[in-house]
């Protein structure tokens, strides 16, 4: 005979008693306090199916969230993606955000940094410091983090393909400030495979990119237990036009590639999977985005348990960071994007995310100003502190609509992942252009739907109004950053011990030709004042370059 769900709740309360008893009482609108979670009455649902597919928050398969008390215990990490100009302007903006309640910092790097060029490279100059901060060497990281409580705040590094290099420069700078790797908390967008699919910021062929992801996983498993070294990313693909199914399926297919590779290298699954996390986009269909989040956690827990034999609970639960505000932020009447951001934020919160980046409403024009960044942060805080979306874990659980959509998304994602498996895995799916073609087709169909009005967008394809709305004050880029970065590089090259720099770069080349972990060598290069571009170039000589498949 099946036991009633109330028995599960009792067991869950006992097991998580410490966490649950620590939560503050939350009064309801009508008086009596709210529970942390609500479950179906006995007899409402098939208890066995509920137990198998939905369960309770903080327990397998994590459909209802990764922590037992969810936001009643603590809110998500609000960490705006931020960086522009040089180290000083970025440091100043970070201080501004921290003083308004941003939890830590999330560094945005400029395009030259993301593709591995120094600021004085001819192709780099028009882009230096534009979409993110310009960094070339250890000194930039020292200046950027000067005066910040680096051992007490989360630090997200968003360098993508150049993550290993940025990581080495960052760690060398932290070392100078007396901070050891083991003290650092935060995360890194090390997922390089998505750069071939969507961001276009690739450098080396995928096999070498994967090797360096493995190097980082191995290094962090040993040295940085508090850091999340690999964020599996969907948002870049979603922004390029992928639908929600492609977003999750392609991101997870890439994760499978990393995990299989790490296992081949002899890394224990529970030594690495405990520190993996994922990132997804949240658009206006926030109820379905929430369902997507629930489905993603369920798929992940079973994937890790059944396919990879993970045993640690921390390996099975997927922490998710939300990206809100990309291509669905409109150029026309930009302040209306504040509402679009709120909808996305709600989807992420109702889905139970652990972190969030929300774009400024001026996203379509330029990087955010102080004002638009402040509003992006306030949006999250208002949803977090002033609404009851955070009062109970998984408030949508048990909705016929949301549960069914969760099941349907799960089935479609699994189907697409199986398709990629049959093809030979995500690298084949990337090198053949399969993922890129699928995304390009979705983007085209989406554009058609938006242009025809089948997908309504207020003030864009319906209710346009008359006349032009007042012009927005956008970020004014500092055109002198490239000159200052070049002067710094000139000084660096004149002052450093060039023989030592050369010696370390030679060691890097030799390590790359063999199988050694490249991270310690990259840190040595950074200590020896090698520039980011010099390190990237050294490995280009060994690894070669990725060639885009024709579409």
């Amino acid at each position, binding site marked *: 005979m099946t036991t009633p769900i109330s028995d599960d709740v009792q067991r869950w309360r006992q097991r998580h008693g410490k966490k649950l008893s620590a939560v503050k009482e939350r009064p309801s609108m009508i008086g009596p306090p709210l529970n942390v979670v609500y479950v179906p009455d006995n007899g409402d649902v098939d208890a066995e199916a509920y137990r198998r597919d939905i369960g309770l928050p903080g327990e397998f398969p994590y459909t209802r969230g990764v922590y037992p008390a969810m936001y009643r215990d603590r809110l998500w990490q609000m960490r705006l993606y931020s960086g522009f100009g040089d180290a000083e302007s970025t440091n100043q903006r970070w201080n501004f955000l921290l003083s308004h309640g941003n939890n830590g910092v999330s560094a945005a790097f400029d*395009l*030259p940094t*993301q*593709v591995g*060029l120094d600021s004085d490279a001819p*192709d*780099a100059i*028009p*882009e230096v410091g*534009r*979409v993110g901060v310009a960094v070339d060497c250890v000194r930039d990281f020292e200046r950027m983090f000067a005066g910040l409580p680096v051992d007490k705040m989360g630090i997200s590094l968003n360098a993508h393909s150049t993550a290993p290099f940025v990581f080495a420069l960052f760690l060398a700078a932290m070392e100078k400030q007396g901070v050891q790797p083991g003290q650092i908390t935060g995360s890194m967008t090390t997922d390089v495979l998505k750069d071939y699919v*969507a*961001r*276009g*910021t690739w450098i080396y062929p995928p096999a070498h990119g994967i090797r360096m992801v493995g190097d980082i996983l191995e290094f962090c498993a040993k040295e940085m237990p508090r850091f999340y070294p690999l964020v599996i990313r969907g948002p870049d693909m979603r*922004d*390029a*036009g992928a639908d929600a199914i492609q977003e999750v399926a392609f991101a997870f297919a890439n994760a499978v590639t990393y995990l299989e590779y790490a296992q081949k290298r002899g890394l224990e699954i529970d030594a690495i999977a405990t520190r993996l996390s994922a990132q997804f986009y949240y658009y206006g269909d926030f109820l379905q985005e929430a369902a997507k989040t629930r489905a993603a956690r369920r798929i992940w827990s079973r994937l890790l348990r059944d396919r990879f034999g993970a045993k640690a609970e921390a390996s099975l639960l997927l922490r998710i960071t939300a990206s809100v505000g990309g*291509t669905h932020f409109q*150029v*026309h009447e930009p302040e209306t994007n504040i509402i679009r951001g709120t909808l996305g934020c709600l989807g992420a919160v109702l889905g139970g995310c652990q972190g969030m980046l929300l774009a400024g409403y001026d996203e*379509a*024009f*330029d990087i955010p100003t102080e004002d638009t960044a402040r509003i992006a942060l306030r949006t999250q805080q208002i949803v977090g502190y002033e609404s009851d979306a955070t009062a109970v874990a998984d408030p949508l659980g048990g909705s016929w609509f949301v549960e069914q959509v969760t099941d349907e998304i799960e089935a479609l994602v699994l189907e697409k992942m199986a398709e990629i498996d049959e093809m030979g895995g995500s690298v084949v799916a990337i090198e053949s252009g399969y993922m890129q073609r699928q995304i*390009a*087709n979705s*983007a*085209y169909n989406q*554009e*058609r739907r938006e*242009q*025809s009005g089948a997908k309504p967008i207020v003030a*864009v394809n319906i209710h346009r109004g008359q006349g032009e709305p007042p012009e927005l004050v956008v970020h004014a*880029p500092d055109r002198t950053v490239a000159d200052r970065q070049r002067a710094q590089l000139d000084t660096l090259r004149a002052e450093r011990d060039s023989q030592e720099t050369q010696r370390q770069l030679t060691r890097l080349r030799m390590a790359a030709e063999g199988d050694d972990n490249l991270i310690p060598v990259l840190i040595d290069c950074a200590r020896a004042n090698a520039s980011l571009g010099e390190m990237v170039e050294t490995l280009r000589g060994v690894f070669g370059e990725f060639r*885009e498949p*024709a*579409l």
Partner: protein
Amino acid sequence: MSAEPVDSGRRKARVLVAKLGLDGHDRGAKVVAHTLRDAGMEVIYTGLRRTAADVVAMAMDEDVDVIGLSVLSGAHIALAQQVLDELAVHHLQNEIPVVIGGTISPKDARVLREMGIADVFGVRTPLDELAPRVQLLVRDDR
């Protein structure tokens, strides 16, 4: 719904869709390529991170009728000028018209036209306008 094939009596226009600089946003470029192909044009897409010299060399190799640039990094004026200058080096400035698309303000659109850019496609240009506007630029005598 897809665009009507353009003026089927004339030969197929060949269009080079190009991405310049470090900007990796190719969603728009791919949507444009798809739209022009649906309209019966032959489209060659350069891929990412091309220089002006790469683009003009490809335009000559592929014997295209029109070059379409997609720029979302904000550097549209500088990059358009580089392509026009490179065409002039090969004495092709009056042979191959150049058009551009991206997040371009009306003011910048005027500047681009004055520089010699043949057409400017801002955000949300109706897809069905693309092929007819490109076709207008194709010279029958080439």
